[in-house]
C-alpha cells in the first residue's frame, strides 16, 4: 500500500538555492497560473552558482541513472503551445547513477553565462530563463524541478539621442508641431516636450499622449502583431487657439515598460510608440504615432 502511494508522491524533495541568494535582488515574476512570485535577478555574463539538495522522503531510497542541472533560455510562442525554443542550454552533471538514502547536496556553477536576451512576458510570446534539475530514473520516470530567474541587461545611455521634432497637420484644418526631447528613453525617464498649435480650425476637445507597445511574433506569413496601449495621459483640456503651446511632461516610471527588443533570436520584436491623439468635439480622433526606443539604464544604486 505504501508502495502504491509512493508512486504518486515525489520520492524526494529537491531544492535549488543560489549562492548569493540572500543578497541578490529579487524581482516579481508572473507565473503561468497568474501568481506573482519573487525570483532572483541576473544579468548576462554573471556566474550562476548555488547548491542543489536532494532529500528523499523519509526512509526511502532514490535510485537514479544520474542527476543533472540545466540552465535553459527559452522562447515560448503562445500560439504554438508546448513548443519551446531553447536559445541557451547549458548542462552540468551532478552525480553518476546510484542511490540516495539521505539528504545530499550538490554545488553547481555556470560561469559567465551568456544571456543576451531579457526575460519577457508578452501577449503572444514569453522569454524565460530556468534552472532545470533532472533526476533520471528508468522505470519510474525522471524527477524534474524548475527554478525561474529573471535576466535584465543594462546598457549605457546612448551616445546619440536626438529629439523628435515634427510638423504635422491636415491642410487648412490643423497644423501642429510637436517636440519630444529625446528619441531614446530609459524606463524611469521623463518625456519632456511641447506641442505648438500653428493652425487650429477644428474644435478640439482634448489631447492625449499614449504609450503603445507593439509586439510582433513569428516571421513571414506567420507574423502576429499585437498592440497594447500602456498609458493614456491627458495632455490638454479644451480648445487651444493658434499660437498656443502646450507642455508635455510624462513620467515613465508608473508604467510597466520594457526596453525595446529588436528581432530577438529571429522570433519576436517589441517596439514602443508615442501616440499623440487629438479629439474634436465630434469625437473624431486625429493622431500621430512616433516610435521611441526604450532602454534599460544601469542602475546606479
Amino acid at each position: 500500500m505504501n508502495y502504491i502511494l509512493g508512486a504518486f508522491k515525489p520520492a524526494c524533495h529537491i531544492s535549488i538555492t543560489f549562492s548569493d541568494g540572500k543578497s541578490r535582488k529579487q524581482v516579481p515574476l508572473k507565473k503561468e497560473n497568474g501568481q506573482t512570485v519573487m525570483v532572483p535577478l541576473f544579468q548576462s555574463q554573471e556566474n550562476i552558482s548555488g547548491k542543489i539538495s536532494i532529500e528523499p522522503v523519509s526512509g526511502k531510497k532514490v535510485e537514479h541513472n544520474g542527476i543533472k542541472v540545466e540552465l535553459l533560455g527559452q522562447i515560448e510562442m503562445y500560439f504554438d503551445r508546448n513548443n519551446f525554443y531553447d536559445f541557451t542550454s547549458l548542462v552540468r552533471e551532478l552525480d553518476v547513477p546510484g542511490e540516495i538514502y539521505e539528504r545530499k547536496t550538490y554545488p553547481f556553477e555556470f560561469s559567465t553565462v551568456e544571456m543576451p536576451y531579457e526575460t519577457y512576458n508578452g501577449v503572444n510570446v514569453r522569454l524565460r530563463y530556468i534552472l532545470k534539475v533532472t533526476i533520471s530514473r528508468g522505470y519510474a520516470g525522471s524527477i524534474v524541478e524548475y527554478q525561474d530567474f529573471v535576466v535584465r541587461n543594462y546598457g549605457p545611455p546612448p551616445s546619440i539621442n536626438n529629439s523628435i521634432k515634427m510638423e504635422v497637420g491636415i491642410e487648412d484644418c490643423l497644423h501642429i508641431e510637436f517636440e519630444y526631447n529625446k528619441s531614446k528613453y530609459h524606463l524611469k525617464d521623463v518625456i519632456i516636450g511641447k506641442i505648438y498649435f500653428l493652425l487650429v480650425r477644428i474644435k478640439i476637445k482634448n489631447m492625449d499622449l499614449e504609450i503603445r507597445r507593439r509586439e510582433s511574433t513569428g516571421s513571414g506569413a506567420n507574423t502576429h502583431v499585437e498592440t497594447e496601449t500602456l498609458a493614456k495621459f491627458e495632455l490638454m483640456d479644451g480648445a487651444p487657439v493658434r499660437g498656443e503651446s502646450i507642455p508635455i511632461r510624462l513620467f515613465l516610471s508608473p508604467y510597466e515598460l520594457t526596453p525595446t527588443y529588436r528581432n530577438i533570436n529571429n522570433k519576436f520584436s517589441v517596439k514602443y510608440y508615442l501616440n499623440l491623439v487629438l479629439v474634436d468635439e465630434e469625437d473624431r480622433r486625429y493622431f500621430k504615432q512616433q516610435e521611441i526606443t526604450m532602454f534599460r539604464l544601469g542602475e546606479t544604486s
Partner: protein
Amino acid sequence: MMIADGIEDEEKWLAEGIAGIQHNAFYLHRAVESNNLREALKYSAQLLSELRTSRLSPHKYYELYMRAFDELRRLEMFFKDEDRHGCSVVDLYELVQHAGNVLPRLYLLCTVGSVYIKSKEAPAKDVLKDLVEMCRSVQHPIRGLFLRSYLAQISRDKLPDIGSEYEGDGDTVMDAVDFVLQNFTEMNKLWVRMQHQGPIRVKEKLDKERSKLRDLVGKNLHVLSQVEGVDLEIYKDTVLPRVLEQVVNCKDELAQYYLMDCIIQVFPDEYHLQTLETLLGAFPQLQPAVDIKTVLSQLMDRLSNYAASSAEVLPEFLQVEAFAKLSNAIGKVIEAQVEMPVVGAISLYVSLLTFALRVHSDRLDYVDQVLGACVKKLSGSPKLEDNKATKQVVALLTAPLEKYNDIDTALTLSNYPRVMDHLDAGTNKIMAMVLIQSIMKYNTCVSTAEKVDVLFELIKGLIKDIDGTLADELDEEDFKEEQNSVARLVHMLYNDDPEEMLQIICTVRKHIMAGGPKRLPFTVPPLVFSALKLVRRLQGLDGEVAGEEVPATPRKIFQLLNQIIEALSNVPSPELALRLYLQCAEAANDCDLEPVAYEFFTQAFVLYEEEVADSKAQVTSIHLIIGTLQRMNAFGVENRDTLTHKATGYSAKLLKKPDQCRAVYACSHLFWVDDQDGIKDGERVLLCLKRSLRIANAAQQMANVTRGTGGPVTLFVEILNKYLYFFEKGNPQITSAAIQGLIELIKTEMQSDTATPDPASDAFFACTLRYIEFQKQKGGAMGEKYDSIRI
C-alpha cells in the same frame, strides 16, 4: 452644451457634481486620517475630476470649485506633514504628476507646489514658473480660469516679494512680477476666448457670464499692486508695458474696458502720474466700441482727487505736464474713434476741465483751451439735439462757475460764449439760468459795464426771443421763473463808482429793451429800482455831485428812467409803468427836482387817463397816486394844486359809489400833511369828508332802490374814523358835534328796517365806539376833547 440647456438641468448637474465631491471627500478624509498617501491621491484626483464638467455656467461652476477648494486646503495640510505620509516633497511633486487627467493633475500639482515653496527645498521662482507653465495644459476657458485662479490663490503669500521670506538666493521681486504677469496674461486670454464658446445668438448671455468672471482676471492686477517690491521703476519698465500690451492685443472690448479701469483703480495715482504717457498711449489703440470716455474720465477724476489731496503733489503734475498729455490724449482718442458720439467727446472734455480746474486752478488759459477744443468738436455738427450731450455741455459750462464761485472768471473765457452758441435754445436758457443761479449762490457782484455786456450776451436766451422759438411753446410758469431770475440778476450788478454804475445801467437797458412785451414787465422794474438806488446814492453824495462835468447826475438818470418807463407803457403795461413813474416822482421829489417830479406825475396821470381802463385798476392806481402825492413836498403851491385837483377829480369819477367814497375821503389827506411844514387846510379836508358822506348816502340809497335793502354801514364807519383822525390831529373844522351826528346817523341806519345785518361792519363800529370810550376815560387833553361826544 451648457448654454442650450435649461436652468433646472444645471441645478441637477451641480447637485450631481457636489454629490461626487462629497462622496470622494469621504474616502479622502479616511485616507488622510490613516496616513495613506496612495489612497489620498487616488480619491483627491477623483474628487477633482468633478471639476472637469462642461455643463455648468460660471456661477454654478464657482460653487463646485469652492467645494473642491475646501478639500484641497485639507489635503495641503496633509501634504505638508511629511512624517505622516513618508514621502519627500520633491517626490510628491513628481508623484502627483502621474495622474492621467490633466485637470486633477494640475490642481494637485499646485497644491503640492504650495508645500514645495514653503519647504524652501527649491527656489520659489522655479516652482512658480513650473506651475504657471504647466497650467497651459488647460485651454478650456472656464476650467482654465478657475485653475489659474487657484494658482493665484495659493501663490499669493509665497511670492518672492521684498521683505518676504521667499526672497533672496536669486529669487527677486522680478520673479514674482513675471509670475503674476504671466498668469494674468494667460487668464485674460482664456477669458477673452470665452466669447467664442457658444453660438452667436447667445452672445449677450455669454457676455453676462463673462463679466461675472472678470474679477478672477482682475485679481492678478490687484495682487501686483500689493507686491511691495513693485516700485515706480518696475511698474514703469515692466508691469505697465506688459499689462498694456496684453490689453491692447486681446482686442476684446469687454476686457479692454474692464482692465483699463482696473489698472486705474488698483495702482497708486502717483504711478499713473509718472507713467501718464504710456498709459494714455494705449487708449487710441483700443477697440472702437470700448467706452474710453468713462475710463479716461475716471483716470482724470482720480488724478484730480489726488491733486486735491495735497498741495505737495502739485509740482509733480507740472513736472510731467499732465494737462498737456491728457489734453493731447483726448484729442487723439476723439480723432481715432470717429464713431464716438458727441456726448462721449464732451464728457471727456468735462473730465479734462475738472482736472484742469482742480490741478491748475490758476491757469485760466487751460480752461479756455478745453472749451476751445470743445467748440472745435462741436462746430463740425449742427446744434446739439442729443439730450445727453447737451447735459454734458451744461456740465462743462457749469464746472468753471462752481470752481471759481465767480462769474467774472467765466466772463473772461473767450470760448465760453462760443460753446454756448452750440446749445439749442432750451438748453441755452437752462445754462443761462445756471449762470444766474451761480451768481446768486455766491453773491457775486458783476462790476463793470463790459462784463455786464458779456454776461447779457451769454444769457441772451433769456433776454430776448431767439429765432425759431415759438412763444406759445413756453410754459408760463417757467417763463416767469426765468424772467424773475433775470430780474434778480439785475440787482447783482453793482459798482461803487456812480459813473461805471450808470454805464452798467445803460448796458442792461440796451439788452433788456430787446426783450419784447412779455419780458419788459419783469425786467424793467429791477432796472428802474437799480437806477433809483444810484440816484439815492448820488443824493447822499450831495455837494460833490455839483461838479459840472460829471455825467452821472440824478437829472440825467431821470431822463433815462423816463425813456425806460415809457417803453414799458408802450408795451402796454400801463399800471406797472404808472407805479414806476410814481416811484421816480418820489425819488425826484427827494432830490428836490420839482420839474422832474412834476413831469413824472404828469406821465402817471396821462397813463391813468388814457390807458388804465379797468375800474379795479383805476381804484388801485388812484390810491397810489394819492398816497404818493401826499408825500410830495417839493411842489410849489400851484403845481400841487393842479395835481391834487386832478387827483380829487379822478376820485370822484370812479365807477362804483363805494370806490368813489373811499377815494374821496383818501383825498382828504392831500390837504392835511401831518408834519411840521406840511399843508394843513382844514376846510378842504372837511369838504372832502362831507363829499364822501354824500356819496356814501347815495350808495345807500342806490342799494335800497336796486336791491331793496340798505347797503352795509361800513362806508359810514370808515368815514367816522377819518373824522376821528382829523379830530385828534386838531383840525378845527372837525367838531365833536359833527362826530356826534355821524354816530347817530350810523346807529339809525343800523336799526332801519332795510338794514342788512353785517357782522363785520357791526364789529367795526363797535370797536370804533370802544375807542372813543377809551379816549374819553384816558383823561388829559384828549379826554377833554372827547368829553362832549356821547355814545
